[in-house]
């Protein structure tokens, strides 16, 4: 990333203050977004999302595993993001580690809530607490309990891997959008006679038949079907909207140049119903609680538009796929 001269910085800040950014966008306008589905055939679900010059790929793999002892009724999701050196010379070797970790953690917080997989209103003595308070319902983005096959015995482990191919700011939003789209695909979700799986009926994981052994101690036999898939319910997966604060205003979908001028950035994940599923803040500067509240209401509004844009993109991409086959 090249540095900017004082004059250019001044110009960018001025543009944001006057609601006309360098490429003619307004503060709350996204760049055009494009979605490609099924870019990695080996994965259960994959998607490539381009947001202006930002380009990311996400693949989702599902494997059968064992639930942890602490949470026998929940599946596991591992999220890992890598930055390819093609995105910039700074990412060569170990240069991308810091950013990769930051993005992985950010994505985890936005999609899974905290580590236990559910958002809990932890009382933090600052604005974040308020943010939790005003969210009427706390719900993790990905419902982990829907990934269980046999309680305590078999569950689905989802491996969500992101790759940043080209970076021009707003990576978190692009990655989250890609995760949302990638989940639509053939995820091998299991189907047993257990009632709990009814919730998964329109989600895309492969069908699994489970035959329970005679004694409850036995590991159940699992048979994964190659032909039958269950659709994973992706409508619940939230989109992430990052509000980047530059000067006294905040913008969505910041480019790399604009991000270099930010004082802090708040990423909010909002699901279809307008519920906040997670929140993470980057950047050093503090935020006034009232600003956070303001940001939440703006993010909800922006997320609504983004969700509908993504939905239409998904529909278009699926239609294109159907045409080919």
């Amino acid at each position, binding site marked *: 990333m090249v540095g900017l*001269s*004082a*004059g250019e910085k001044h110009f960018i800040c*001025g*543009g944001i203050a006057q609601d006309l950014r360098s*490429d*003619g966008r307004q503060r709350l306008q996204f760049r055009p977004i494009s979605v490609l589905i099924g870019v990695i055939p080996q994965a259960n679900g994959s998607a490539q999302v381009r947001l202006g*010059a930002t380009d990311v790929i996400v693949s989702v793999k599902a494997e059968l595993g064992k639930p942890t002892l602490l949470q026998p009724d929940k599946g596991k999701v591992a999220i890992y993001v890598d930055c390819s050196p093609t995105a910039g010379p700074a990412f060569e070797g170990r240069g991308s580690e810091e950013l990769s970790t930051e993005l992985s953690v950010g994505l985890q917080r936005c999609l899974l809530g905290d580590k236990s997989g559910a958002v809990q209103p932890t009382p933090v003595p600052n604005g974040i607490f308020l943010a939790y308070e005003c969210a009427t319902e706390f719900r993790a983005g990905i419902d982990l309990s829907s990934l269980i096959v046999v309680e305590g015995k078999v569950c689905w482990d989802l491996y969500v891997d992101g790759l940043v191919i080209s970076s021009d700011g707003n990576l978190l939003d692009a990655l989250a959008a890609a995760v949302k789209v990638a989940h639509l695909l053939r995820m091998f979700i299991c189907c047993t006679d257990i009632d709990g799986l009814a919730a998964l009926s329109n989600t895309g994981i492969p069908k699994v038949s489970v035959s329970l052994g005679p004694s409850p101690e036995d590991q159940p036999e699992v048979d994964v079907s190659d032909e039958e898939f269950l659709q994973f319910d992706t409508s619940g997966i939230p989109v992430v909207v990052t509000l980047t604060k530059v000067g006294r205003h905040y913008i969505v979908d910041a480019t790399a140049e604009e991000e270099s001028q930010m004082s802090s950035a708040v990423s909010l994940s909002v699901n279809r119903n307008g519920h906040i599923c997670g929140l993470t803040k980057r950047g050093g500067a503090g935020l006034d609680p009232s600003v956070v509240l303001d940001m939440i209401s703006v993010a909800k509004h922006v997320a609504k538009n983004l969700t509908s844009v993504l939905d239409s993109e998904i529909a278009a991409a699926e239609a294109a796929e159907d045409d080919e086959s």
Partner: protein
Amino acid sequence: MRELRVLLNQTQKVRLQAALQHLRDLSFQASSPAIPVTIADTIPVNREDGILKGHGTLEFNGQVVATQCGVVEQVNKLVYVRALKARYKPEVGDIIIGRVNEIAPKRWRIEINFSQDAVLMLQSMNLPDGIQRRRTAVDELNMRSIFEENDVVCAEVRGFQHDGSLHLQARSQKYGKLERGQLLTVPAYLVKRRKQHFHHLEQYGVDLILGCNGFIWVGEHVVLGENEMPEDQESRMENQEQNFTPLKVRQQICRIANSVRLLSAHGFSLSLEIILDTAEASVSSNVEINDMLGAEFYVQTAEREVQRRASLLKKSRR
């Protein structure tokens, strides 16, 4: 240039294909069609004349083949392939825009998209306020008050030194630091060498500088000789709010910058006329600044270019 990606719907795709096909046909009708080659393509040559194989070519099984993608060029006997997305190749007298990389003793090193950094010596520039420089050690220590790291500067190519380094000069009021605007980078081959690279668009109040190295500056118009002293800048940055570029001017800057982005995404050569044409077309068809990068205007631009080239061809035939 970070590539612009445009999502087209089916009809727009068809229209774009048709427009591009037209452009291809037109270029074949022109007097000397350029031969585009990719790696391992055979280059048709007239063996009897005897040829010299130049850059990007190779003798293979008795044929001349290309070793890189580009356009075949021939100068007398020499046949070579000119790569399209190569780095900038400086020529003496080129007006270029660059970004200061480093301050070294008595010189600035400037990034200009060449294979090495260019050098601007302190002695080969006139000071911004036009006063005579006193060649003292103190003066050299104060170089940062003229250009700092990351500053965008405009200069002229002075020539290559004996050691192979590239030297620049800035001996006029029109050269120097560029502020209050945005820098765009496009492939260097899109900017052709012309008589005039500095443009003051009076109707818009915008300065447009087309650097030969593919760096393009679009900024607020600066009146020559009114450059503030460096001390003023400090105070100027402090009361930022009052000093922002006026919204009207900013709109024009963004409109022209988006025209440049759009044209470079199409791969059309950038000249003042075509940039202004695009900007005016967007105004007359009521396209928002942001939507200039959208699919519809993208296709319209290609179609307009077809018309322009077709009419040029007609004129030249008459």
